[in-house]
């Protein structure tokens, strides 16, 4: 009689080694060279990649915010307006548009954006915020809710 259980027990390290490795190799499938197929190298690369992915999730959002802000600033400066005053004016008029929408409007619907700048300008100069005098005269023909009161 042969007792194989001990030998098999030694060979079988942990639960289902093949599938455990398979999970890692699945994540390294798009890597180049031995980092793709050799497990001991792949696992290091996958760990690094996952760390980068974790960091990248946050960085991506920050990058997009920075890009939108540059674009809105550019759009504002065409109409002789500053970004902080523009946002403040819109919020005071209860126009709650986020950066993404404003940047999109500046590119795709420039005339809407221009009217938004005018509304913000009228509101900001009506409330007399700091730095308004540099913007020049407020546009005529704009009626905000604050003016009606």
């Amino acid at each position: 009689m042969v007792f194989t259980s001990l030998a098999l027990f030694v060979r079988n390290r942990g639960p289902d080694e093949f599938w455990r490795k398979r999970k890692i190799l699945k994540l390294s499938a798009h890597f180049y060279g031995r980092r793709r197929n050799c497990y001991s190298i792949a696992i290091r690369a996958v760990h690094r990649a996952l760390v980068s992915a974790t960091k990248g999730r946050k960085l991506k959002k920050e990058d997009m915010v920075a890009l939108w802000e540059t674009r809105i600033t550019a759009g504002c400066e065409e109409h002789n307006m500053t970004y902080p005053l523009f946002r403040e004016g819109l919020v005071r008029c209860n126009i709650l548009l986020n950066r993404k929408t404003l940047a999109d409007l500046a590119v795709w619907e420039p005339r809407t954006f221009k009217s938004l700048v005018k509304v913000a300008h009228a509101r900001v100069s009506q409330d007399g915020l700091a730095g308004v005098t540099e913007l020049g005269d407020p546009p005529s023909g704009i009626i905000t809710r604050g003016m009606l009161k």
Partner: protein
Amino acid sequence: MTAYKRVQQWNTFARVWHLYDATWQNPFESAQRIMKYLKGLHKPIYHPLNDCGDHVVVINSGEIALLGDEWRKRVYFHHTGYPGGATWTLAWELHDKDPTMIMKKAVYNVMDGNLQRRYTMQRLHIYPDDDVPEKIKQNITNQIRQLRPVPKRLDRYAPEEVQRFPKVMDWPKNYILR
């Protein structure tokens, strides 16, 4: 892509030529503004990967104004790469040698040191006076506003204007001005 769309894209990505008069302007503050136009940061279509920068023609770079005694104190460093090849040039010396150099270096230094910088600099044209070649002058369609107003020199005022200027007192007849 239809012909209409192609034209629309040309329209959106059209390069504009701007003019900047550097008379009596601080080159380092002006560089911040010029850089915006060179990189396309003044356009709402800006993206670091799209090539939407404009051309800037700077005139009168020989007339720039440096703060305080920066003409004497500011030093430009250059190294030829050989041992003992380091040179330090004062700002006034450099300006004597090449009146466009300070402006050029100011713009170059204000940009990020990436691979795009050399190509962006190619879109900057600097002239020491307002004598711009006709070929470039024809392209200019816009002017960038200066940072500060250029004060008028006393000898440019008409004598009657000087006469009319209010003064607290007149010098006595026998007073010797030194």
